[in-house]
């Protein structure tokens, strides 16, 4: 551990936020220099959950390594697996059956919904409103039940294999998803009533943590964080992958770049995800759910990179292959890492209370940052 200083030479107090702190959503450690309540500088210290996944993956086969990535960004575990599978498929040049593509996307969007609901609940909790968390979990539990039936797990689904999905969907899948959509649509108004329209909430988020479009580009921000600043960066839209090519949906953009804009992006994205699921749920094509692949996968020599949109932003999976059964080098470009690098810029000059709201709207998942 590095030497902890109490005060800077100028006499400002250095406050250690974390690694165990309720609003860091994990084990993020921030050194913040404060003058009274005003934040002068913020220095993130990460690595408290650095599990060396990249090194570990170098000794795992192409079938195995996919599942260790579920533990990276566990709230969008499915999308992580999807990214890895896409990269491996790109190398193997496997055609994924259409049915598998559609199932993958439905589960992806359900994961996104579950992730955003958890984010909504915990953001409200960070800002001091404790009840929305429980309302969010009410709907989220419906999703985890669906996941459990079809994928076999609630959180880290491990449902994707190179070439398709591991098993066919559960017979109840479509009915339950439709039930969820009905329930969710009846409750989204409640979400807005409870939190969005609250005057205190708006005061806490409007005009706070402003990130301009230029800065968003320079800091490499992605996902709802960047879209709140008006940067069009939804990979689903601009570089469509999987079955997203054939789906009608809007890319949500807000231009203010403050916490409230990021909040609204995520809220509207939830509705958009429901819209995507509605289009697909009755149109799951018949056929195989998995393409035939060899038992031992060998990627040809080369470098493969896949970009895809997780709940937090752009995930990049970069595989360098030497032609063996294990990757030579693997790199995960995690969305949270770049978003975190903009945090210092965003909170400078704000109060300690604002740090919580900005961090909440960045939706940081620390294992995703540390890998």
């Amino acid at each position: 551990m590095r030497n902890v200083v109490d005060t800077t030479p100028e006499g400002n107090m250095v406050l250690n936020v974390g690694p165990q702190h309720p609003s860091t959503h994990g084990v993020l450690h921030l050194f913040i220099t404060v003058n009274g309540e005003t934040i002068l500088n913020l220095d993130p210290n990460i690595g408290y959950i650095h599990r060396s996944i990249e090194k570990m993956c170098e000794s795992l086969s192409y079938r195995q390594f996919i599942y260790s990535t579920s533990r990276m960004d566990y709230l969008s575990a499915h999308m992580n697996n999807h990214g890895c599978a896409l990269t491996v498929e790109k190398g193997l040049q496997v055609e994924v059956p259409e049915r598998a593509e559609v199932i993958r996307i439905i589960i992806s969007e359900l994961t996104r919904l579950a992730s955003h609901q958890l984010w909504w609940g915990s953001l409200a909790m960070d800002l001091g409103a404790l009840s929305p968390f429980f309302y969010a979990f009410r709907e989220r539990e419906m999703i985890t039940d669906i996941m459990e039936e079809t994928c076999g797990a609630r959180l880290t689904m491990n449902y994707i294999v190179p070439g398709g999905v591991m098993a066919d969907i559960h017979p109840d899948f479509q009915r339950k998803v439709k039930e969820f959509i009905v329930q969710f649509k009846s409750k989204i108004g409640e979400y807005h009533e409870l939190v969005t329209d609250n005057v205190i909430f708006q005061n806490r988020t409007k005009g706070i943590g402003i990130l301009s479009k230029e800065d968003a580009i320079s800091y490499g921000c992605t996902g709802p964080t960047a879209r709140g600043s008006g940067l069009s960066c939804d990979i689903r839209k601009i570089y469509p992958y999987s079955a997203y090519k054939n789906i009608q949906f809007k890319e949500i953009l807000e231009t203010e770049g403050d916490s409230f804009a990021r909040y609204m992006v995520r809220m509207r994205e939830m509705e958009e995800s429901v819209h995507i699921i509605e289009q697909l749920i009755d149109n799951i094509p018949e056929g195989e759910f998995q393409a035939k692949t060899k038992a031992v996968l060998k990627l040809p020599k080369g470098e493969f990179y896949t970009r895809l949109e997780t709940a937090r932003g752009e995930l990049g999976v970069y595989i360098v292959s030497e032609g063996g059964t294990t990757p030579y080098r693997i790199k995960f470009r995690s969305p949270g890492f770049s978003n975190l690098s903009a945090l210092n810029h965003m909170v400078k000059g704000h109060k300690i209370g604002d740090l919580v709201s900005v961090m909440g709207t960045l939706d940081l998942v620390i294992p995703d940052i540390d890998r």
Partner: protein
Amino acid sequence: MENEPLLNSLQTGFPEATIAIGSDWPEMSIESTQLLEVIEKLKGSDNWDFNYLFCETCVDWKTHFTMVYHLSSTQFRHSMVLKAKVDREIPQIESVVKFYKTAEMLEREVYDLFGIQFLNHPDLRRLLLTEDWVGYPLRKDYHDPINMIKL
């Protein structure tokens, strides 16, 4: 720009560099000393406008390192891969922080895990590991008999 025209325009822009289409995008290999001028040209040019660094990482090839920069343009939506060879004995390369602020953290990570020194980096410290960590774990010759249990 699509990959083909981008490749052609890059070839005319950088005649001395080796450029080829990779699995997704054009890949350009340069020497580490050229990095700053190449990036300046790539970012500043109106044709290319590579203003978005979405991934920066390093690969250990046992004989040398390769710094890999994935660049893209938010305006034209085209992407490219820039590779710079770094010597293994004296692992030094210029930092690109002045072009892309995101590189600050990314380069700290690379420094942490590969031990590459970034010249003119504002604050080059260990990021993920503790300050007293010995060695650079993502190098291929990293050996840690205590923590690493080999399967």
